[in-house]
């Protein structure tokens, strides 16, 4: 076994190239606030520009095929990029683009040639930002129960309804959405996915007032929106994967959303917490010297290590083409629920300091206060903690002789 990436000389040369490029191209003044909703429009534009620049080099989606604008690089190169970007607290893409990450991968599996040629290059080159539109007021955990309707009319589909918990701040250029194309059809046999350009008439975007929008770290998510569809007309050629075949497409989309991608990153919040605990004083000495606080810090460390190892294992499994089963949702479930426990531990460790982002007293650049809220909100997106256990149970074959297979990935 080998728990570390090993690099060839060629890859180390690549690292130097990436490092130099990033040094020249990442703006010095790029703000990375704890609550991504605080990202200004100016900063957002800088993130977008950086994304396009990365896209041009094939580094935005490094392992995507070159024929569709991706980088065509190996996983080892992707790791190098990931590690170097992490030095700037950046990820790929450097802005919220969940429809790009999941939609792009889904189109690669389910789109026809024409669609791949039309839709993938703009995504992989960072020219468009794509939001995913899944949840509806009456379809949360039960995604297969979406009710937004798409009705064929000539060469178009006409979409009506509402999606919630969408996107982030500052808009997007297109949406990747699942609709119901046969209200009377059998469950899982009546859904279809579309790419919807954001400028299509009939779309209204309204921000939601939430405890906090983000969750689970990663690229900033900004605020969330409700999007209303009022006779939104989309060409039939934007239907991906065929009419009423949407649940098949969803399995690819969801497989990735449910944590099967893995990660080689560790949770930076843990280091911030440790530093805070070494700095904050109680009864005149650093609280990190208090044995009870140490117990709590170790609890946090242990769970963060387990999270890290689950992410690492999934990263390896995915890239070594191992057959995935329960591992994706396990990682997601563990991260969500240990996040909640970590929030509680931080509250105990730091006392009320965990709850304030007051600039005079908070020594974490708001990260602790934000986490107190985001660890709650992070329980739900991409499938609630409960839904992860539902999927794990099916993949493990608990109570059933046949194990459910993981969704198809490219």
């Amino acid at each position, binding site marked *: 076994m080998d728990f570390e990436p090993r690099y060839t000389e060629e890859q180390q040369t690549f690292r130097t190239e990436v490092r130099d490029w990033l040094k020249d191209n990442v703006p010095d003044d790029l703000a990375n606030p704890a609550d991504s909703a605080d990202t200004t429009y100016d900063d957002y534009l800088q993130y977008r520009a950086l994304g396009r620049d990365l896209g041009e080099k094939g580094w935005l989606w490094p392992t995507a095929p070159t024929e569709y604008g991706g980088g065509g690089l190996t996983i080892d190169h992707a790791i190098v990029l990931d590690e170097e970007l992490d030095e700037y607290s950046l990820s790929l893409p450097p802005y919220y683009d969940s429809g790009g990450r999941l939609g792009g991968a889904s189109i690669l599996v389910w789109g026809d040639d024409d669609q791949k040629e039309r839709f993938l290059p703009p995504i992989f080159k960072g020219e468009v930002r794509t939001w995913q539109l899944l*949840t509806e007021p009456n379809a949360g*955990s039960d995604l297969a129960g979406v009710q937004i309707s798409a009705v064929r009319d000539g060469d178009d589909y006409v979409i009506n309804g509402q999606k919630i918990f969408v996107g982030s701040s500052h808009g997007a250029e297109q949406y990747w959405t699942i609709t119901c194309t046969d209200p009377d059809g059998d469950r899982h046999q009546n859904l279809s996915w579309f790419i919807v350009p954001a400028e299509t008439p009939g779309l209204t975007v309204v921000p939601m007032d939430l405890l906090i929008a983000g969750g689970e770290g990663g690229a900033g998510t900004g605020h969330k929106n409700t999007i209303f569809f009022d006779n939104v007309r989309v060409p039939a050629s934007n239907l991906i994967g065929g009419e009423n075949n949407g649940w098949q497409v969803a399995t690819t989309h969801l497989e990735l959303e449910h944590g099967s991608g893995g990660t080689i990153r560790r949770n930076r919040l843990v280091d911030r917490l440790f530093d805070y605990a070494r700095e904050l004083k*109680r009864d005149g000495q650093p609280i990190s010297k208090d044995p009870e606080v140490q117990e709590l810090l170790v609890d946090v460390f242990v769970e963060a290590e387990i999270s890290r190892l689950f992410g690492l294992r999934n990263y390896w499994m995915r890239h070594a083409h191992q057959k995935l089963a329960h591992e994706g949702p396990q990682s997601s479930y563990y991260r969500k629920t240990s996040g909640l426990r970590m929030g509680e531990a931080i509250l*105990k460790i730091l*006392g009320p300091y965990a709850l304030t982002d*007051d600039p005079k007293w908070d020594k974490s650049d708001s990260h602790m206060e934000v986490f107190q809220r985001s660890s709650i909100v992070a329980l*739900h997106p991409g499938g609630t903690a409960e839904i992860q256990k539902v999927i794990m149970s099916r993949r493990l074959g608990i109570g059933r002789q046949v194990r459910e297979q993981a969704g198809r990935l490219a």
Partner: protein
Amino acid sequence: MDLSLTEQQELLKTTARDFMEREASKDILLELEETESGYSDELWQKASDIGWLGMLVPEQYGGSGSSLTDAAVVYEQMGAGPLSGPFFSSGVLGALTILEAGTEGQRQRYLPSIAVGREIAALALTEPDYGWGPDSVSMRAQPTDNGYVLSGTKLFVHDAASATTLITAVRARGHEGMTLMMVDANTPGVSTRLLSGFMGWVGEVTYDSVEVSADAVLGEPGSAWQPLQRAFQKAIPILCAYQVGGSQAVFDMTLEYSRTRIQFGNPIGRFQRVQDHIVNIINHLDAARWTTYEALWKLDSDRLTDNGVETSIHLAKAVTTEGYYQACNGAHEVHAGIGVMKDYGLTLHTQMSRTLYHYLGDPRFHRKRMAETLDF
């Protein structure tokens, strides 16, 4: 043995519940959340009129001299809102502190005004080196010819911004023990500032060479710790009752949601995982309720000399605070997306459960005290 409320208490409960429905509905509370004080003048006046601020003030000082259990019954309903504003700070903790620590003259000076809501007291005890133990107070008061000069910072002071009187804990030179000073919030040099974050109406108070007269000392200099502990003993179970009420409200809304939210063709409450969250909530709620009311019973039946009363109070505080916190977390798991939408109302409780988590000692603090009272 009789674990039911008295008729009188049932009446208090109904009245309080009606008041809350009428005057402090969810929409009103969501508006109040955006204010600096957590209350409106109108609401404050109405609550004063029905006697909520004078319940623990003895009749001779203009209050109703109710039992702690009586007050707890009302605070439980307030917690169900959760009703914000300095009710507990002034009407319970402030009043009890003055009653326990003040001279007869000070009681007469402050309690009648507090009882009718004309003055608002808040306890400014905690400091940047945060804690609730006897060593937590280090801010100094320098004696002058006719009084003291106070300088320093009090941090995480509940309802600091709305207080007219800040009961300020200091070390007065020449006295080893703690001293409480009655500091008018308008005294030159006193400034309060609300802290932002996932907490409500908790502030910083700075004292910049604040001059107070000698009679600002509550009781005798250097001797406030013991009476303050007595005030804490009585105040804590009422704060617990407030958290019980909050947990009950969180349980009620979650139970209702489990019946009306349909996913996969069924009310979500038919799924065992959802049930388990709700079962956990009611276990926390019931544990909180009965530990709280047993502590109140011990206090009201004058078991103050009984060592068990202290353990009971610590137990109640640890259990209710953990319970309210976990009840909110469980409710969020059941509600998923809708629960984090602010206008739904759950987050009022989530934030309140965090706001109160460390107030008067967090669960760890009270568990450590239990290790002492249990004599390990």
